[in-house]
């Protein structure tokens, strides 16, 4: 069976280095903005690590591609994919949790963030326990995407207008509230999508399915 070359491997090295530098620049810029927003040094480290995580993933794919082949290669590439999906969804979750911590305060933020964490882990592990439910939720995600297409052109503009006018009128709380909702939805949705995709693309999945049928 032909195995598709990962993007991180098929790209020339200059393109790869450019991408890594660009990602680092974006995440460092976000870290700088984030720090001025929340006045907290810890997220800066997390944001800079975010760029490093994606770079690490790409390096892993290249390293694995040169040294392994066959089933081992498929397994190691799959591990890399799961790692980067988990990493990115985790970053979204951390973003959402920080927004709710800011809004809800010490006792209540534990409940909200606890529920978010349980939903996040549950969505990642759902295919293991009930593949049918995971498939149904994944289909639902695509169904609601039909409605979202109508907003695709204007989402960025509406977001920018909301951000600008909130800043102008000193409504920092409103921005954090909306970002909290959007990031919570994104982290849970992405966790479900990545968990489902990782499960159906796991090594031996097709062989097992054929053997059973």
């Amino acid at each position: 069976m032909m195995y598709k070359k990962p993007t991180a491997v098929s790209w020339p090295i200059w393109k790869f280095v450019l991408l890594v530098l660009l990602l680092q620049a974006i995440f460092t810029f976000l870290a700088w903005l984030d720090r001025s927003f929340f006045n907290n040094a810890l997220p800066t480290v997390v944001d800079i690590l975010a760029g490093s995580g994606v770079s690490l993933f790409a390096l892993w794919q290249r390293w694995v591609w040169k040294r392994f082949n066959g089933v081992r290669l498929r397994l190691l590439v799959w591990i890399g994919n799961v790692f980067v999906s988990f990493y990115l969804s985790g970053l979204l979750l951390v973003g959402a949790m920080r927004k709710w911590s800011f809004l809800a305060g010490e006792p209540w933020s534990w409940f909200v963030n606890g529920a978010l964490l349980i939903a996040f882990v549950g969505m990642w592990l759902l295919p293991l326990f009930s593949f049918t439910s995971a498939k149904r939720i994944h289909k639902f995600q695509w169904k609601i995407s039909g409605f979202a297409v109508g907003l695709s052109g204007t989402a960025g503009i509406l977001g920018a207008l909301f951000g600008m006018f909130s800043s102008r009128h000193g409504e920092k709380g409103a921005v954090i509230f909306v970002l909290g909702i959007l990031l919570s939805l994104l982290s849970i949705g992405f966790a479900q999508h990545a968990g489902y995709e990782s499960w159906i693309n796991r090594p031996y999945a097709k062989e097992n399915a054929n053997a059973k049928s």
Partner: protein
Amino acid sequence: MPKKMRMQRVDVYPSSVVLSRCVLCNRIVKNREFWVSTAVDFAVSVAVGVAAAAVVGMFVTATTPLWMAVAATAVVGIGIGYFLDAFEIPKQLKQLFGGEAK
């Protein structure tokens, strides 16, 4: 029998006078500050929207559900828009184009 109807005197003003007395026109239509402010806000928001879509487009793959891409674009747009205004970029642009910033 009603009294004899008398013609009422009606003042007719030239259009320039009418326009100069129109409050709505003076506040909005002929107000350069309003137009510069509106145009700058609109242009900045469109530019930010395009930039947000470009940033999200780098990370979105064909298998990602579209609603996530739309929500992520909105998140990035809110973030960039908030910080642009916090650093008074639209205000500086308005001053640059001749509209007095609020």
